[in-house]
């Protein structure tokens, strides 16, 4: 912990925080400078995340960083292991692409867009890195506070109405988080995740039952965030109302909830944790299947593409949570791979939805000032923006849409198919041929296959409507920044497909690492001994 490079672990939190503070000092009208600084920060975050990913893949265990050099159960640690490093890379890719997309015009639709955006990235990165429950609460709140601003970005009646419900639901979820954290602390005397995992098998029956109540409260919080049925009705309206780049980055937010559930379930309630082993797994499985069903029906009924993308986010969360609830390590590795691909694809769909719909329905992407000090017509200099002039622009958009649809529906040859196949083979016990397959696993297999079909049908319908039907009115315009952002996200999807072998191997190593929580506990508490 003496090399300067080791301090890079804290950089994904400190860098966006510092830059976002600095951006607040700059005048709102200096768009170019602010945009340049934010994009440079997002690029740096991506580079750091990739470095951490390589370091985590090379290290035998986890890398722990002690804040203020306080020893672990008392001080707060940041932990980089394969899971958190992978999520960091996913968040930085999404963050960079959404930010570049916003440069075409959304960053001028309201004040302090870049500062909010970077604060959101800081909260997300911190939630992935932290090894302490209360610290997780703080990062959650930072992330949510920034997301409230981003949901409302661009203003207008629809956004404010959706934002009101979004904020109310998440405030209640935060209160649940506090109840859960305090119950966990009262009954175990620690908030460090590694220390919790160590002390859990030693709890007496009275403390254990109260601890499980606390864990259930925490679980409800994270499941509200990851929009598990019946806790996720807030998601589609809020995400559909948000501006396109905000919705794209918000799609990583629901994955933060999924990440915490995966992390805590496998760390605290793994096979080695004594009497609490497997706590909540049946609920995750049942809730995940119900989410798959609800998301699929919602997608079938959706009338516009942004709302459909919101339901796609729900389906992706439901798949991962149900695979986790099934208790098969092979299914979890497939689910982690699927999570990366489906999140990228859902974010792409949010961006495509805006590009395609603003030609037909100008009101959909308009902004509306509510307070007097807002920029009244932020898009007045739209004509000066150089639009990318390609005759076959519809064909390009169509190709991006095709990649998205194949990823989300899980059809070959793209990564969505590889991920789903890995989940299915994990569930069917291809990895461990001994013993019969549980009935609940068969139910999940059926739900996954049907939801694939149920995703394909509406996406096909939207595709025909947007790309095959002769266009009335102006053809969709594509600005340079938007094209770059779309290209980045589609390249991410294709890279996951082309290098599916290494990526799946990484996900399998992650699942193996998560299945033996002793490694995590050792890595965090061993750093203390030094």
């Amino acid at each position, binding site marked *: 912990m003496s090399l300067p490079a080791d301090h890079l672990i804290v950089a994904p939190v400190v860098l966006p925080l510092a830059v976002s503070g600095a951006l607040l000092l700059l005048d709102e009208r200096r768009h170019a400078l602010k945009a340049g600084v934010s994009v440079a920060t997002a690029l740096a975050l991506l580079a750091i995340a990739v470095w951490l990913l390589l370091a985590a893949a090379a290290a035998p265990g986890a890398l722990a960083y002690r804040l203020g050099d306080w020893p672990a159960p008392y001080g707060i640690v940041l932990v980089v292991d394969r899971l958190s490093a992978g999520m960091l890379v996913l968040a930085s890719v999404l963050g960079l692409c959404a930010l570049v997309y916003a440069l075409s015009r959304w960053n001028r639709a309201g004040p302090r867009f870049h500062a909010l955006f970077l604060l959101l990235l800081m909260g997300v990165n911190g939630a992935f890195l932290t090894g302490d429950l*209360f610290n997780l*609460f*703080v990062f959650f*709140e930072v992330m*949510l*506070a920034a997301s*409230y601003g981003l949901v*409302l970005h661009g*203003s207008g*009646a629809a956004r*404010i*109405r959706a*934002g*009101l*419900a979004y*904020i*109310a639901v998440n*405030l*209640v979820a*935060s*209160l649940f988080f*506090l*109840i859960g*954290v*305090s*119950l966990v*602390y*009262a009954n175990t005397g620690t*908030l460090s995740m590694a220390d919790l995992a160590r002390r859990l098998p030693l709890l007496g029956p009275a403390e254990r039952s109260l601890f499980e109540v606390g864990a259930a409260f925490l679980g409800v919080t994270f499941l509200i965030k990851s929009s598990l049925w019946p806790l996720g009705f807030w998601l589609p309206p809020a995400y559909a109302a948000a501006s396109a780049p905000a919705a794209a980055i918000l799609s990583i937010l629901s994955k933060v909830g999924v990440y915490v559930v995966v992390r805590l379930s496998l760390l605290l309630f793994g096979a080695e944790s004594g009497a609490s082993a497997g706590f909540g797994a049946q609920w995750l499985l049942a809730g995940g299947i119900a989410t798959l069903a609800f998301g699929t029906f919602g997608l079938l009924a959706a009338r516009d593409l942004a709302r459909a993308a919101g339901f796609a986010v729900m389906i992706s969360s439901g798949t991962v949570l149900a695979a986790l609830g099934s208790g098969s390590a092979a299914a979890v590795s497939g689910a982690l791979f699927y999570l990366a691909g489906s999140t990228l694809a859902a974010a792409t769909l949010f961006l495509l939805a805006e590009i395609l719909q603003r030609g037909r329905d100008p009101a959909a992407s308009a902004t509306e000032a*509510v*307070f007097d000090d807002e920029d009244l017509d932020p898009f007045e200099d739209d004509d000066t923006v150089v639009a990318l002039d390609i005759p076959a622009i519809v064909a390009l958009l169509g190709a991006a849409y095709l990649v998205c649809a194949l990823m989300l529906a899980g059809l070959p040859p793209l990564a969505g198919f590889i991920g789903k196949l890995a989940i299915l083979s994990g569930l069917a016990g291809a990895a461990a041929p001994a013993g019969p397959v549980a009935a609940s696993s068969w139910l999940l297999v059926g739900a996954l296959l049907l939801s694939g079909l149920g995703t394909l049908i509406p996406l096909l319908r939207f595709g025909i409507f947007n790309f095959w039907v002769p266009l009335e009115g102006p053809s969709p315009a594509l600005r340079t920044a938007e094209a770059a952002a779309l290209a980045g996200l589609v390249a991410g999807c294709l890279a996951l497909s082309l290098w599916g072998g290494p990526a799946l191997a990484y996900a399998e190593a992650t699942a193996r690492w998560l299945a033996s929580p002793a490694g995590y506990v050792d890595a965090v508490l061993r750093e203390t001994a030094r």
Partner: protein
Amino acid sequence: MEAVLAAGIGGLAAAGVWLILRPRSFQVAIGLTLLGYAVNLFVFAMGRLRVGAPPVLASPEANDPTLYADPLPQALVLTALVISFALTALFLVVLLAARGIAGSDHVDGREPDR
């Protein structure tokens, strides 16, 4: 003392839950505030109730932990208070904007059909 505190937390939480289920956005805001009070008191109580025990070490000699109140929940409450205060303020702004733009203080943005 436990019974009084428990009844207080329960009363606040019950009132808060009832209010956040009401149709007017201001009632929801007050409900969130009351629920926040109840939860903060609950976090506070999770450090065990002690009367007259300081949460910081008074002198290096008297370092017997039974003499002191648990300082950690107090620190947690402080953090949670600041966060919930700020977010309630933000919620009020959004509430006012919604009231102004929709002309109705119903949480759905319009009066229900009668």
